[in-house]
């Protein structure tokens, strides 16, 4: 059985490129006005809740300050990102990925489950099993269910042309400057996930390869004798 559906793999790589472009061009855009506010308006730095650092050229697209070009990239990459998110949600609901892998049970949220997940992940054992552990479910669920949609909705809300289509969106988010602040916060939330994701994936190159080939889920064979440290949770971690 294939571990990663073709739709998952396609979305994963298109989205990876889109997110990198959006994040780096977004840092360039941030440099244009490095102050974040709450509410509808805000333009005086002393009213800001956060003064953001000036992001260096190596971290931005383009690699020097240019608001117009950064916006070109941001406006372009927003399409594969936004449409892609809609696509993967539909695909996950249809192919059962969401139900099988991301839905958590109340027991998954207990400290014991979290500790067990982390212990199993660091136990460098034979992780041929499948399924996400509770920590992975919560992390991936938070990214799919909260951070990525929040990026899309706050991005739409900031756009003055879109506000005429959905004025309620600005109200839900607490005003345009609040939406802009949340856009910034969610971007760094995704960056945080990206770092964890990369560190764990780079620790096991096979996982990256599988994201291209699809990988294979081993038949459940009675392998090594279950050690005492092995946590009593379904499946073993196999993912960054």
């Amino acid at each position, binding site marked *: 059985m294939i571990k990663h559906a073709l739709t998952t793999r396609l979305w994963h790589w298109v989205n990876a490129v889109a997110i990198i472009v959006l994040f780096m061009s977004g840092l360039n855009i941030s440099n244009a006005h490095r102050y974040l506010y709450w509410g509808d*308006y805000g*333009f005086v730095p002393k009213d800001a809740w956060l003064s953001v650092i000036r992001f260096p050229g190596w971290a931005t*697209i*383009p690699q020097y300050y240019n608001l117009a070009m950064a916006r070109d990239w941001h406006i*372009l990459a927003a399409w594969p990102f936004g449409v892609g998110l809609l696509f993967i949600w539909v695909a996950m609901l249809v192919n059962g990925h969401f139900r099988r892998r991301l839905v958590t049970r109340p027991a998954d949220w207990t400290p014991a489950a979290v500790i067990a997940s982390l212990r199993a992940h660091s136990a460098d054992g034979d992780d041929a099993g499948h399924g996400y552990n509770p920590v992975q479910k919560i992390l991936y669920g938070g990214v799919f269910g909260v951070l990525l949609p929040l990026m899309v909705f706050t991005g739409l809300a900031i756009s*003055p*042309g879109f506000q*005429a289509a959905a004025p309620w969106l600005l109200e839900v988010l607490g005003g345009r400057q609040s939406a802009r602040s949340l856009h910034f916060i969610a971007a760094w939330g995704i960056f945080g996930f990206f770092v964890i994701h990369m560190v764990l994936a780079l620790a096991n190159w096979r996982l990256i390869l599988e994201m291209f080939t699809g990988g294979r889920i081993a038949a459940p064979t009675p392998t090594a004798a279950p050690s005492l440290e092995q946590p009593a949770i379904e499946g073993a971690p196999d993912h960054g």
Partner: protein
Amino acid sequence: MADIKRRSLLAGLVALGAGACSKIAGSETGQSLFETAEGWHRAAHRALAGKQGLAPEYTRAERSPTFKGNGSVTVDSDFYRQQLAGGFPEWRLMVGGLVEQPLALSLADVRALPQRTQITRHDCVEGWSAIGEWTGPQLSALLDAAKVRKEANFILFRCADTLYGNAYYESIDMVEAYHPQTIIAHALNGEPLPEKNGAPLRARIERQLGYKQAKYLTGIEAVSSLDDVGLGKGGFWEDYAGYQWYAGV
């Protein structure tokens, strides 16, 4: 060792990506990609909001305490200074181009037209926002009075100010020109337009970013194409800095 290799591989990938980005951005394919993406945003906005969909309006209590002046904050000419001091008695707003009936309106003429007052949010491309109460006639009233011809596809705003030695100008399409919230404002928060905000007249196009809100207006022109105006991109920032012509994103 493996770690070092991995790290240099990553650095290499980043550099490769950056190089690829500037190559794409510089190419014609890249430019047309950007323009296509911008066009899709405009089409999506128009489809979802409708041509006449309104930008949110606010209450007086929700206004920002002041209204930032940005870009040009004055016009550097003796005529302007003298007019500003005297309440703009000789200022004229020309309405021309592809029209049957060209107009030359004084400030009193502009004030005598049916007025619209709206409290709206101004979003600068840089990211900040301010909220103010604007008063003035709808642009559609001026265009109807001048009888715009069918060949007109764009409305051009001519301005008295210059930036970096070049005349400021802007343009919008006919959908935006006939939008009910598109007005020629002569007042901000119940007072005559302040100098830094574009006295005596400025455009308000409420579904687009700040650089579209042309200040120090001297003329409104109906044209069929933007190719022969300025450097052909439809506005000062579009011409000289590559900003997006559709400023609704």
